[in-house]
């Protein structure tokens, strides 16, 4: 207990123990001073890495899901096999998937991202496809009747109208992935999972656990909020109702 951090595997300030206050030594619930001292060397880098891990996973997952959904929208028979495969990926326990990937891919960013991306596919694929299919038949009929090509119908009518469902999917995906990315440290020691793991290994060291966990939660809420805001800006028609 006297030197909780020096025993950790994560980034450590060599003279940390010397600076420890009684709050840290007693492992009280939350030591603000520790956070101040470790924001620069520990928390901020971990937060940045976490953002990159999560955003990359959702972005890649979104690209793959969009392609799959567009294909399934055009060729209906693709929906079933795609749903089955993405559901299986989704049901694999997170830790197990990381372990499975570690052997063939290695302990690196690729293992981390492959796992994270695979968890976004089901959510995003289903939401995008549902959005595309929610476009009313008469709207599609009008699009065809006014001489729009398939691509024009997709870009000008179907995708804009699918936007609320797509954003709903993105919200679930980003929150899920931000949470899930805290166990990425198993194969790739980056992100908020690293300080959380360190803290857990030390008693747990409550301050670090709360700080890192709180950052993950805050990040998820922030991402969700930004998406809600983005949707409001992108879908002005959704709020327009007869006045």
């Amino acid at each position: 207990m006297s030197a909780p951090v020096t025993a950790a595997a994560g980034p450590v300030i060599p003279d940390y123990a010397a600076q420890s206050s009684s709050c840290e030594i007693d492992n009280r619930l939350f030591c603000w001073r520790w956070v101040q001292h470790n924001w620069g060397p520990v928390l901020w880098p971990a937060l940045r890495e976490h953002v990159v891990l999560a955003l990359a996973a959702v972005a890649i997952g979104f690209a793959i899901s969009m392609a799959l959904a567009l294909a399934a929208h055009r060729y209906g028979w693709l929906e079933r096999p795609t749903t089955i495969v993405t559901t299986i990926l989704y049901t694999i326990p997170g830790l197990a998937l990381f372990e499975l990937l570690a052997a063939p891919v290695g302990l690196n960013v690729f293992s981390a991202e492959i796992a994270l991306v695979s968890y976004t596919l089901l959510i995003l694929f289903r939401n995008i496809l549902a959005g595309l299919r929610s476009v009313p038949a008469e709207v599609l009929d009008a699009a065809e009747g006014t001489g729009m090509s398939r691509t024009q119908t997709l870009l000008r009518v179907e995708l804009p109208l699918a936007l609320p469902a797509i954003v709903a999917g993105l919200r679930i995906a980003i929150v899920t992935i931000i949470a899930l990315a805290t166990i990425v440290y198993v194969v790739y020691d980056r992100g908020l999972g690293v300080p959380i793991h360190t803290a857990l290994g030390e008693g747990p060291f409550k301050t670090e656990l709360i700080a890192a966990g709180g950052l993950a939660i805050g990040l998820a809420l922030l991402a969700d909020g930004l998406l809600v805001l983005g949707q409001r800006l992108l879908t002005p028609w959704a709020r327009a109702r007869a006045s």
Partner: protein
Amino acid sequence: MGTVPGAGRASAEDGRGPTRTGDPLGVSEALWPAELRALRERRLKASEPGAWARIWAPGRELLLKAADTAHSEGPSAFAQAAELELREVSKRYPGQREPAIRGLSLTVPAGEVCVLVGPSGSGKTTAMRLINRMIPISAGDILLGGRSVLARDPRALRREIGYVIQQIGLFPHQTVGENIATVPRLLGWPKRRIRARVHELLELIGLDAGEMDGRYPAQLSGGQRQRVGVARALAADPPLMLMDEPFGAIDPINRARLQDEFLRLQRQVRKTIVFVTHDIDEAIKMGDRIAILREGGVLAQYDTPREILMRPADGFVAQFVGADRSLKRLALTTLGELQLIEPNGHAEDWLAGAPHTDGMVRVGRETSVRDALATLLGEEGRPLAVVDGDGHVEGLLTLELIERLLSAEAAAV
């Protein structure tokens, strides 16, 4: 139902040319020959003396050429409508033994409203959708302005054919203005021209441009949405409009109003129109000609409303138009078209203030005989005073007069 059901029908016969507004050339810049557009660019830049004359001479030729083609076809501010001809058109869906449309032949003269009417299963909507190739034709040919639609790119064809459906199908994520601009945008009109066109159309359909342009469809009433749907179909000034039960989802009172409004609009824009309905009364009101289809997509009769009502081709048509077809016929005639009864020997009295008509119910000369008959029955047979727009009494209407009209028509059969 009060006003002039027959009013729109005079349109085709009186032979007035198309009404044109907006762009004096009547042709969108996007359709100018490339040389002309390049020329214009240069002209805008030209500043040195003499450049104007050098450019103008060949430019004038091109402008005249463009103006000529605008008359024959192509999007312009209410360009000429085109004749539509269906030649032995058949449609058989794969896997079905009976065709949906069987050897349908009919010609719709330019600028006329042809109503396709029939019971469900008669293929009227199918027939309409064959025209803009939203359903592929199995056999036969369709000519629009003398050109086979089969030779056209389907999307280019559809941009030239206005399309209105019962559910309207406005794009909910686009404003009224954007909805109306759909086809002009697909055609690549310049922005300024699109804006002007949208405002012109909003005015035409009686909506306040400043207020409505930026609204979303969800903020409109059913009738307003319907009007916007019609404006969207008219936007690129198509020579032909297809309308599938356009007023089917509107309540009866507003439907009558929209019908009247549409007939007024049609007198202005003079489109060739194919109008689908299952309602024979609407067909009689809207159609210059009516094509009655029976089950299996067979044409039972193609004629003017008056002919169909007076001389139904067979039992099916007679039954479809209804036992009250003499009454429906009365709806086709307005009081102004009748030889009204002169007030007996008191002509001066009538003109001088007509004390005798004081107690009489007055009806406008634009009223249909059918509506006047209803009023007459309510008055227990007392004569009605028919007045013109200024309230001057033109003559009297009695039950005997209507009887005489019916028997005269019957004798003509």
